[in-house]
């Protein structure tokens, strides 16, 4: 119960605070809240926009969630995502692929492989060299973005792309289409399926359980002889593969070629999604849809109220801080708290927990 109530409360407070901050820009908070809801979930058009954004968010969040279950804080999903998109475009450019489903599967696998290897490197560096994976994964993300820009503006550039350097556009047959009767592409289905599979893997299989043991109690894992190193690298590789897949899907379904538009911050938003879902792959799905909705509503806020495009980033930042802070309330014994409150109705502030 608390797993749901605390994040929902945190989001509610974040929305209140956000409304308060934007009211300084001379905008009515109520209008902002209404537009946020309308832009995200108001009608079928908004829903399509929301779901399109949710697809890469889910996969990028898995890049945080799966390593987190093995006890790692990996925040370099953006790098894996970008490289995944690049690998997808590069494979289609270098090898003549069949313009049909097998070709699409091949480019998606290329993206997943590139992302998986990239994040596995961060896990490997931690296990073999003792390097903090949070720092190394983020540095690797900057390296990946540099490589991406170098290759897209250099060797892999399509000479026809003048103002906006891009790789050659993917063949029509390789693209990921939309689900019948909507603008939402099949990437959403892939994202949901991967989240479900990841959740089932962690819950039901021996290797998934072993990963959770390594993350939950490294000492116990060592005592029962689990191959911790292999499991940690595996968890990183799977997480990275999810983010790489996200990049490949973005290229194959949205951008049709690898270009700078791919560097849109999904990797960073994925961190927030994963933390709010408490690193549960199944919980990632609704949280990703919620934040996809905020992203979709952002352009509406910009158009209708003239708010800066960064207002969504601000909302995300506030939400993230409050979600983490709400963890402090997890141990509060609410019944005792309310009992105390009703017994002494007017006497001073509520008792504060002893600071550790």
């Amino acid at each position, binding site marked *: 119960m608390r797993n749901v109530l605390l994040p929902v409360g945190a989001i509610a407070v974040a929305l209140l605070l956000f409304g308060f901050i934007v009211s300084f820009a001379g905008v009515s908070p109520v209008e902002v809240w209404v537009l946020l809801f309308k832009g995200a979930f108001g009608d079928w058009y908004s829903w399509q926009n929301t779901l399109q954004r949710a697809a890469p968010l889910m996969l990028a969040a898995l890049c945080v969630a799966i390593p987190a279950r093995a006890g790692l*804080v990996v925040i370099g999903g953006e790098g894996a995502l970008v490289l995944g998109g690049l690998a997808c475009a590069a494979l289609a450019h270098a090898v003549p692929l069949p313009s049909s489903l097998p070709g699409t599967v091949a480019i998606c696998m290329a993206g997943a492989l590139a992302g998986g290897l990239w994040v596995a490197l961060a896990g490997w560096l931690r296990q073999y060299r003792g390097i903090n994976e949070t*720092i190394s994964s983020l540095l690797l993300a900057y*390296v990946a973005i540099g*490589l991406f820009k170098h290759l897209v503006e250099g060797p892999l550039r399509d000479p026809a792309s003048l103002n906006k350097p891009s790789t050659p556009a993917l063949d029509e047959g390789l693209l990921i289409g939309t689900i019948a009767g909507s603008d939402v592409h099949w990437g959403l289905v892939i994202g949901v399926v991967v989240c479900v599979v990841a959740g089932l893997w962690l819950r039901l299989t021996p290797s998934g359980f072993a990963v959770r043991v390594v993350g939950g109690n490294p000492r116990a894992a060592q005592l029962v002889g689990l191959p911790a190193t292999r499991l940690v690298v595996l968890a990183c590789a799977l997480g990275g593969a999810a983010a790489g897949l996200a990049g490949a899907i973005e290229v194959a379904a949205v951008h049709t070629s690898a270009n700078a538009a791919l560097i849109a911050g999904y990797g960073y938003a994925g961190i927030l999604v994963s933390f709010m879902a408490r690193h549960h792959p199944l919980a990632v799905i609704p949280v990703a849809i919620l934040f996809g909705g905020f992203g979709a509503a952002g352009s509406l806020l910009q158009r209708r109220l003239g708010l800066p495009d960064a207002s969504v980033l601000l909302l995300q930042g506030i939400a*993230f*801080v409050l979600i983490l802070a709400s963890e*402090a309330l997890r*141990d509060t014994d609410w019944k005792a708290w309310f009992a105390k409150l009703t017994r002494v109705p007017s006497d001073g502030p509520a008792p504060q927990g002893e600071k550790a």
Partner: protein
Amino acid sequence: MTADQLIIFLSGIVGGALRVGVPFLFVSLGECLTEKSGRINLGLEGVLVLSAMTAFGASYLSGSPWLGVLAGAVAGALLATLHGLLCSLPRVNDVATGIALMLLGMGLAFYLGKPLIQPQAPQLPALSLGGWSDSPAVRSALEVNALLPLGLLMAVLLWWAFANTRLGLLVRLAGDSANATRALGYSVSGIRIAATAAGGFIAGLGGASLTLFYPGSWNEGISSGQGLIAVALVIFARWSPLRCVGAALLFGGAGAIGPALQSVGIGWGYHLFNIVPYVLTLLILVITCRPGVVVPGSPGELSSTR
């Protein structure tokens, strides 16, 4: 490469080290102080961006770059205080909070800084140290940031204070053994919040030097991970403020290779040379870290090195 080009290239590197290294210096000193108290602040990236925006805005509105510097430092201290307070709550992890503050700092800065992208704010004066040379390239390379002497002074001061003052000892005590600190009757949280806030103040000076000296304008790509590189840089400097100076200049120089090559007409691989600092950081981490062994000089309570 002719001798002239070599001079231009080398002075480009030295000038870059001095120019790009100054923000690195302040952020790494701030991180060093924070980590000495036993806490890691990944949110310094957010602190850097927010203070860069605040400094630029304050300088633009007040007309005085020095007021801008002060405003930037105060903004940095405020955001870092938030980090310190949040981390003192039970069950709140400092690494995760740092990531959240990185997002929050960037969100606040981009949101409030939107109207500041166009205008030009009064800049900090430059100190000309290159008067002895005839070469214009050397002269322009040695136009150094007026905040550089302050940074060097601060490094020495921090080094001296850690070794010789009661306050410095308290910070190190909180960083090495929380239990010993409690036993002596001091508040571990209090010391850490104060150290984090002071670290944010120092890092804020780095943000100010970004928008008020080099590159000297505000945009949303003003900091690309300098705040995080600083975390690795502190490990490289083994938590010594004096070694932070050398490390910061080294990283500034590494970041200047791309632009320096461009200035002699080699445009190839611009983005590749821009990733040199990140690769260098990773290499340094590979060399200095050992699995299962605590890095020498690291504060005992630090979560990132265990």
